[in-house]
């Protein structure tokens, strides 16, 4: 569970673009259609070697095996969907929370303060990114070599703008707090 500080406001939640997720799952659609294509082209001879179907029950044998195959693909699809849905970047008024979901069990949460950001670079990796307007944002933090990457985010310029605005507001708040304490 992500815990927020008292009074912390969520400003933006960024996920990977739906097109990037769709491209990732295209192979599942192909895998779902493959047995049907194999059946059309008579590539089911090996089934006769494993099972012993007769002419009357071959259809039900194929149907049951196809059902088992589709169930497995459906589960894999939902693992990919969970990966997409739970892999998020939460931009609040004080920090960025980077939640990485890798597969079913692995989960990583990184947090960094907005005032620690020193550089942000937009990277459009391919022509699909240009058409559907999505790309990566590489974030460099002060004193760190490791870069944080917001991958395949939709409207990356808007997200970058949002982070910069929040960073500016955060620095202003920090500045006014310091001035107030110095004035004391």
């Amino acid at each position, binding site marked *: 569970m992500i815990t927020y500080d008292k009074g912390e406001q969520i400003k933006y939640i960024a996920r990977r673009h739906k097109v990037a997720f769709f491209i990732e799952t295209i192979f599942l659609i192909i895998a779902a259609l493959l047995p049907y294509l194999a059946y059309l082209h008579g590539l089911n001879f090996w089934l006769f070697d*494993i099972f012993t179907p*007769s002419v009357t029950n071959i259809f039900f*044998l194929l149907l*049951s095996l196809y059902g088992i195959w589709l169930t497995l693909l459906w589960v894999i699809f939902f693992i990919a969907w969970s990966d997409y*849905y739970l892999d998020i970047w939460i931009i609040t008024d004080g920090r960025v929370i980077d939640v990485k979901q890798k597969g079913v069990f692995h989960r990583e949460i990184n947090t960094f303060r907005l005032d620690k950001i020193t550089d942000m670079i937009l990277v459009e990796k391919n022509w699909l990114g240009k058409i559907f307007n999505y790309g990566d944002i590489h974030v460099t933090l002060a004193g760190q070599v490791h870069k944080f990457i917001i991958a395949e985010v939709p409207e990356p310029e808007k997200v970058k703008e949002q982070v910069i605005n929040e960073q500016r507001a955060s620095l202003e708040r920090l500045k006014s707090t310091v001035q107030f304490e110095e004035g004391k």
Partner: protein
Amino acid sequence: MTLLQNIPFLNTLNSIQLLWLLWIVTFLIFLILSMVLSYQWRHYGVQNSNLRFGEFIYYIIAIIILGFSALAILIYNAHF
């Protein structure tokens, strides 16, 4: 059954038993992964109606596919 003749245990099963074994293994994979996924959605996902609807669709479709598959095995068994 020549492909399975060298595999212990599996070479003793007939077509129907082999199909049911495949079905049960698939069902167990579905059950275990679904429990983990459900936990992830409820625990880490931002709880909203879209997510609950997605979870509902996931279970309904999986149960329909598994049900049809089991039905096909039963009919295959009847014709065996």
